[in-house]
């Protein structure tokens, strides 16, 4: 079923924030907001759930720490415990200070890179990805709010959006379903 959405364009982030609050208080559904830069507090105004990427990063860090520990324990202690410059290689703990720089770096490496990759995957970003930009001006100085018409009266909704400070309001027929 083709759904209809309204694209409302704003030119000021403060007015946009106000509009988002008003639209939500009238219980209209905001599909998406396109902005040229991060608008502080917009996620809260839209009622978006907090990101959990920091938690994934922490877990990736633990993975990195484990990889480093297991790797060096196997190589330096289990597989071939040589005497290198008098360093004690009888057990992992005895030689641990020498391994700490690697354990630290691996933790940071895993935490950082895997978190970035997680971010790309969750945001569906990759090279040659087709840009999903409804209006080129939103990368420069315009803000675009996509409001789902649903079963609402389109006339009334447009009027309401106009009152919130929207400069342009256009009705878009969505071809692909989602």
């Amino acid at each position: 079923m083709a759904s209809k959405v309204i694209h409302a364009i704003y030119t000021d982030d403060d007015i946009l924030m106000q509009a988002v609050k008003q639209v939500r208080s009238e219980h209209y559904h905001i599909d998406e907001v396109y902005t040229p830069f991060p608008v502080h507090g917009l996620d809260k105004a839209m009622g978006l759930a907090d990101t959990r990427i920091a938690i994934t990063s922490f877990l990736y860090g633990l993975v990195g720490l484990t990889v480093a520990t297991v790797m060096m324990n196997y190589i330096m202690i289990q597989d071939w415990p040589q005497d290198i410059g008098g360093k004690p290689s009888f057990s992992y703990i005895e030689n641990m200070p020498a391994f700490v720089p690697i354990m630290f770096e691996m933790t940071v490496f895993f935490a950082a890179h895997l978190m970035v990759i997680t971010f790309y995957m969750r945001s569906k970003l990759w090279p040659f990805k087709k840009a999903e930009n409804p209006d080129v001006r939103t990368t420069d100085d315009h803000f675009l709010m996509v409001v789902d018409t649903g079963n609402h009266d389109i006339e009334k909704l447009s009027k309401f959006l106009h009152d919130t400070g929207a400069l342009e309001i256009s009705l878009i027929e969505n071809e692909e379903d989602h």
Partner: protein
Amino acid sequence: MYTLPNKLKLFAIIFMVVGALGILTGFLTTPGSTAEVKEMMASHGDGHGETHSVAAVDTDESHAVNAEHNGGHDENAADSEEEHLKHTLHQMQNRPWSALYIAAFFFFMIALGTLAFYAIQWASQAGWSPVLYRVMEAITAYLVPGGIIMFVLLALSGFHINHLFVWADPDVVAHDKLLQGKAGWLNGTAVLIRAAIFLGGWMLYRHFAVKFSRKSDETTDNKWFKKSFKISAGFLVFFIYTESIMSWDWLMSFDPHWFSTLFGWYVFAGMMVCAFTVIAMITIYLKSKGYLEFVNNSHIHDMGKWMFAFSIFWTYLWFSQFMLIWYANIPEEVTYFVTRIEDFKLPFFGMLAMNFVFPVLLLMNSDYKRVNWFVILTGIVILAGHYIDVYLMVTPGTVGTSWYIGIPEIGSLLFFFGLFVFVVFSALTKAPLLVKNNPFVKESKNYHY
């Protein structure tokens, strides 16, 4: 305005009295002669005797380090027993002094760290912290009595009233080439002159910073603000030199054969963690009593971040110092850690858990840093951990294997805690709890993160 509740006053005085009794007990129960030491050792029974002989073998290293105590004696079988008793006697006699010194320094460094943080806030024109300035000013009030106590303790040790610093003992220096070489720097007069300069400079800054901040309340222009900014920037330059030298004189010289380049930074990091923790704790306490309605949980969150970040910074420096020395294993450097690991294993590694693992895991979550009881709980562990840190900088060089955390240590801690609470909360009553006419105070009141 804050009024000192009578309950709190009584609380502080009880701590001081109990602590003073503990300190007194510590001095009174110290053995006066080797015969008493022998008796004490015998009365401990067989079990102790056994562990003691093991300990004696273990501590050969520390004996070698402390051999100058006995004027570099040959370890003849005949007088080794008497030598050992004499050595133990010195250690036991040092214990109450050492306990006093550690606790005095611990609370002094909280005030000093707060002063440095306060200066940084002015010099960096921080927009979030002006609502906490009066709390910081009150904590730095302890700098004056605490500094005087430190000076007196240093004077007593520096002129060999007690045996805390081996370099202060002319007999020891006479038999020790290394100490003779350092005598130009490490002698009672020089240490005291330097201490007077450091303390004088810090107190001077503290005096004027507080004065300007109070004056600023009465004016409408930024004249006093600009003055505060200038003296804070100047003080920070003075501070980083003097803090570094202070750490060599007051802490590193307990092991005068040993030296470390990053020691000053290491002491600095520890003192800053304690300062942040105490600022956060006192802020939370005052807020819970309804005195700081302009402080919100974003301010607490920021203090939590400082505690978290500087705990890691402290660990970074601790590990850098430890790992470099462990890795190269040069005998004259490594004895420092050998004695600590062999004789102080539990406190040495325990403090690492308290000062690193605990704050890292508890304060990593952004939401937890806003939860007051979480910050308080972590703060208590951090403060205890850094007390042990100071303890481990002092005790191995003074008390050595005869260490124990008992009445003298806890008594000193209680006494200085009582004094600290009394001084800080009395100072809080001297001025309104919110600065006025600071150009950043409005931003700070609306601060939100």
